[in-house]
């Protein structure tokens, strides 16, 4: 029962939504399209609750870390304090839309702290990529040489300075991207779509139950 009911729910809802793409017929006071829209809206509500659940879980884990003074507990405390500030300011500004100060504070917190910190985290990757490229792009074999030459040509084709050095770099880079790369990507995309279809059918037919946490 514990395994059967979740599988039946997944299969039933899944096939219903799948059928709504191909058919439409009346079911009681509504039709298949109407039921599909209703289920989709339930999905949005569940997703919203999942976001809330994730926040609660985060608070639970990091509160435990702080209270037990585990390694790096000070970072958990910083996270909890930051979360509290954003939640308090955000909820207040949402429920008091006429409060220009609260709205401005929330926007400023996003614009001048959250956004720059988030961007900086990913900007650091640029340095790692530079160092990794220098070490990885060595022409040790024919394939490695091909990769190296293609990477350099695409980089020079994309950067405006490439066109200044030689006006054919953008042409070559664009050809690599729109001909060589595209054919490979097309094959990958089709393969992924077929694999995704096969996996979806396994889930809908109940053969794959990993998403339910009860294994195959």
């Amino acid at each position, binding site marked *: 029962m514990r395994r059967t009911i979740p599988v039946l729910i997944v299969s039933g809802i899944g096939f219903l939504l799948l059928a709504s793409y191909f058919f439409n017929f009346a079911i009681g006071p509504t039709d298949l399209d109407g039921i599909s829209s209703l289920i989709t809206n339930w999905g949005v509500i569940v997703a919203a609750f999942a976001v809330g659940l994730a926040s609660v879980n985060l608070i639970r884990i990091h509160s435990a870390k702080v209270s037990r003074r585990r390694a790096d507990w000070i970072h958990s405390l910083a996270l909890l304090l930051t979360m509290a500030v954003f939640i308090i300011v955000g909820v207040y500004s949402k429920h008091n839309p006429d409060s220009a100060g609260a709205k401005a504070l929330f926007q400023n917190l996003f614009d001048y702290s959250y956004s720059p910190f*988030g*961007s900086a985290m990913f900007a650091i990757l640029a340095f790692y990529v*530079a160092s990794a490229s220098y070490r990885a792009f060595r*022409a040790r074999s024919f394939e490695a040489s091909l990769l190296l030459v293609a990477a350099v040509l695409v*980089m020079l084709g994309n950067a405006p300075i490439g066109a200044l050095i030689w006006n054919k770099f953008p042409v070559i880079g664009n050809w690599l991207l729109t001909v060589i790369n595209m054919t490979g990507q097309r094959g990958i995309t089709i393969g992924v779509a077929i694999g995704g279809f096969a996996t979806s059918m396994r889930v809908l037919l109940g053969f794959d139950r990993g998403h339910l946490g009860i294994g195959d």
Partner: protein
Amino acid sequence: MLERLQNVDRRIIYVLLFIVCFIPMANPIGIPLEVNETTQMVYDIVEGLNPSSDKVLFVMDYSVGGSADVHPQAVAVAKHLAKRGIPTVMVAFVNDGTMFAEQIITSLGDQVVYGTDVINLGYMAGMETAVKAFVEAPKTAFNVDFRGNSVASQPIMANVSSIRDFSFIIDFQTGQPGYQDFLRQLPPGMSYAAGIVTVSVPNVMPYLNSGQLSGLLQGLRGAAEYEVLLREPGEGSARMDAQSMAHVVIIAFILIGNAAYFLSRNKAGGPKA
């Protein structure tokens, strides 16, 4: 010496990269930029829109991590739409997107009247499920917008009864939900373009070639190209010089490493078995 050139301390690379990025940001060089065909396609679509009958759906699906690449694109296109007086409905399926939408609306100032020329519907959780829900019923998907106003009472939403009432959809994204989610959920024949991070450009090419995408803004370069077309230099143009110089440094180190590798190999008496 050759061994050292093959194993340059990464801190030297980091410092050099920082210097070549910082100097052009502080003192722009102004390297000329040629506009890509895919950027021109987006520009031409916006230029061809009719302010009295067309509406644009402006999807803000990027997070702070990719905002350095994508936000300048969104700013440039929003400026263009505001300049032409095209009503723009902003929506987000990534939680950061709605805050960037507010940032853009604030930056447009008096060029737009909120509720008539532009609206920020807010964020809807659920990834592709949310996209599906919105596409099926764009007018009723949100009861209130991000600012707490009733969506049904906003003049901009008056003639929106289905997704087909949007003449053009432009989606700025850094990951999920992305162009694939939209292309699966949108009805066929809709004009849909995307603004993406540079690393995603190779993946998008098949969709552009097949015509499923009407245009594409390719990372920071796409933003800079759009600013060139608008004749209004902004963040994109300012950062392209830094990106160019960073590319040069990376390529230079790759060439130095390979030159040292080949020279040391020849010195050692040819390739090792």
